[in-house]
């Protein structure tokens, strides 16, 4: 994985000192809250429902064992013993003190980490495929490109006061595991007919109150123009994105209002101009970065056989591991979704264990997924049983990846000052319900996503089943959506009808799954059946 050189380290160290100075000026009254707020936000520090919340960037979701240990230590030293992994592959701490935040950032900098641009109206942390470098279907590892973009976007002086936040995802396979088309810019690395690598740009996707699927504005940007093209996309947005209404300020609205053709034309004009400006790093820089992402020294000649005699292990093996590109290895996913638990939360002890497992069994590397789980990307199949035993002992052995129990949920009204309803209790009740009824296995792949407000941090638009919490005259109310997907076949869920209370929504979800079980055809997932039979059959069962 990428390692800082003295330049990267100096930038992050300088940022810590800058923020230490800004924090001092705030505490001494030289900065008002209005002035300080955008500064603290660009260092990931929010004022949330109960305290300050700090969001730490995990570039493209990749962590070393030492970094995961450091995240655990921070949870113990500055927070209350846990952290929350988010849908953008980051981690959040919920109980941070302002006067301790600079020290926390200094601790992060010691392990080549930071909270730069994890909030605010700027280019956020770049996300990617959590299986990058391990999965067989990628045409190339997307992370060097993500790292190149990370450096370009860090402290980019022109783009620190954008109309609104800006999220970029980079993938490099046909299967989209990063919800790429639901980002402000989604980049898919592709190979053209001549065999050259380039980037397809999808611009103007997003969730929030106006969900949109990004259209492709260019099918092939040569790799030695990647930064220049990105800069053109951003400049057009910075100049013309709406600033009169924060709900219409995302780039998706600009692309929608201008139309794809007009936005594309403006980008192409700016791109042609910027190509004359010499802003593109040389290919040698991309090569330098790519060397950090070379394959680890895999052993060869390993057997693919695994002893399945323990039924609990066999279930976990079937549900939570994926084929690796290297024979004898597997990708193992640690579920942070124990039945009845809080999606994405991990304790200090659990983080330390995951760090140890990464170091011992996965070439010192782990990943955070946008579904709020942790990946051990390069595990020898012979080690899977030992890993599973240690996970089981630590409450991390849930065998439910991509099932109805593997729920994405935002922090909701339990933690978030923007939320209208709580998300976590709904997730807890749903996972308990399906665990109790034993239907989880029968339902197979079913992506259920819960947001506590219209901002859609819980990706409810993209859930096969989505739940949106709203405030109805001061009480929590939950709307049900069906038919969303974030994958290759990206689609947006449709609201079924009137909302429900907390217990009502759990019943409604179960009724929707019963329709699937009754009407599915051979090989169909919930989403396939929904698409074939349409929403009416589900509405009828839900509302009677």
């Amino acid at each position, binding site marked *: 994985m990428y390692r800082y*050189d003295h*330049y*990267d380290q*100096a*930038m992050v160290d*300088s940022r810590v*000192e*800058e923020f230490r*100075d*800004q924090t001092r*000026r705030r505490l001494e009254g*030289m900065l008002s809250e209005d*002035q300080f707020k*955008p*500064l603290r936000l660009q260092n990931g520090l929010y004022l949330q429902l109960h305290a300050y919340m700090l969001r730490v960037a995990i570039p493209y979701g990749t962590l070393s064992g030492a970094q995961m240990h450091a995240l655990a230590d921070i949870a113990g030293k500055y927070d209350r013993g846990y952290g929350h992994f988010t849908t953008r592959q980051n981690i959040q701490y919920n109980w941070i003190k302002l006067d301790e935040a600079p020290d926390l950032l200094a601790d992060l900098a010691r392990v080549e980490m930071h909270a730069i641009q994890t909030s605010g*109206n700027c280019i956020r942390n770049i996300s990617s495929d959590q299986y990058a470098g391990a999965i067989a279907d990628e045409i190339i590892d997307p992370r060097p490109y993500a790292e190149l973009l990370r*450096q*370009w976007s*860090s*402290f*980019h*002086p*022109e*783009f*620190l*006061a*954008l109309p609104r936040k800006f999220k970029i995802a980079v993938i490099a396979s046909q299967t989209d595991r990063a919800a790429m088309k639901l980002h402000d810019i989604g980049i898919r690395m592709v190979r053209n007919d001549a065999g050259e690598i380039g980037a397809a740009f999808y611009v103007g996707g997003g969730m929030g109150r106006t969900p949109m699927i990004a259209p492709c504005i260019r099918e092939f940007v040569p790799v030695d123009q990647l930064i220049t093209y990105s800069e053109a996309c951003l*400049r057009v947005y*910075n*100049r013309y994105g709406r*600033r009169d209404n924060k709900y219409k300020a995302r780039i998706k609205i600009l692309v929608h209002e201008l139309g794809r053709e007009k936005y594309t034309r403006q980008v192409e004009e700016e791109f042609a*101009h910027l190509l004359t*400006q*010499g*802003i593109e*790093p*040389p290919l*040698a*820089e991309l090569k*330098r970065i790519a060397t950090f992402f070379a394959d680890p020294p895999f052993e060869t000649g390993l057997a693919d056989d695994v002893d399945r005699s323990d039924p609990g292990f066999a279930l976990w093996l079937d549900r939570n591991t994926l084929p690796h590109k290297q024979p004898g290895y597997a990708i193992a996913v640690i579920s942070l979704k124990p039945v009845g638990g809080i999606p994405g939360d991990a304790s200090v002890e659990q983080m330390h264990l995951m760090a140890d497992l990464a170091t011992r069994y996965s070439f010192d590397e782990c990943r955070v997924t946008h579904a709020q789980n942790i990946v051990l990307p390069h595990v020898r199949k012979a080690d899977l049983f030992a890993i599973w035993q240690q996970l089981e002992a630590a409450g991390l052995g849930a065998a439910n990846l991509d099932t109805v129990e593997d729920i994405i949920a935002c922090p909701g009204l339990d933690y978030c000052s923007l939320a209208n309803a709580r998300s976590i209790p709904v997730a807890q009740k749903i996972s308990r319900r399906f665990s109790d009824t034993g239907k989880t296995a029968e339902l197979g792949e079913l992506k259920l996503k819960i947001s506590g407000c219209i901002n859609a941090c819980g990706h409810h638009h993209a859930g096969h089943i989505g739940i949106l919490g709203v405030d109805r005259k001061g009480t929590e109310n939950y709307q049900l959506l069906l038919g969303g997907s974030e994958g290759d076949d990206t689609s947006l869920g449709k609201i079924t009808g009137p909302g429900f209370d907390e217990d009502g929504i759990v019943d409604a979800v179960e009724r929707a799954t019963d329709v699937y079980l009754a009407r599915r055809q051979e090989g169909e997932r919930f989403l396939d059946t929904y698409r074939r039979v349409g929403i009416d059959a589900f509405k009828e069962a839900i509302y009677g």
Partner: protein
Amino acid sequence: MVELLRFREDEPVADPALTVDSFSDQSNASAVRLEPGDDARDLLPFLDQLRLVEINFPSFGDGRGYSAARILREAGFDGELRAVGDVLVDQLSYMRRCGFDSFAPEKPFNPAGAQAALSRWPQVYQATGDGRRPIWALRHDAQSNG
């Protein structure tokens, strides 16, 4: 306290800066003020006669002026580029990178604060036309030299 922070040797322009609308009616004016909604590229035919372009930041959160500044510099404008309005000390180094070479903030800067902000970053990640060599260039210089 600093009311005009300037990084130029030439004499400041004494003429008041005109709005873009009134500028287009006056053929010999040398100073103009851009508002966030103005298109900096409308000034490109007049760069030879312009000695001062003020770019107004009515609110520090509106970043259109950063793009306007870069567009003017990229087109070869070498007159004074002045940030005016709600300009805060924490933005100084980024504004310098976009090509601003003078600052007339609504609320004057504390000189020590301005100095600290301007010397904050040892290096930079991007090429922006301000003459600083980005980190990627330094890295590959170093490799070819060593």
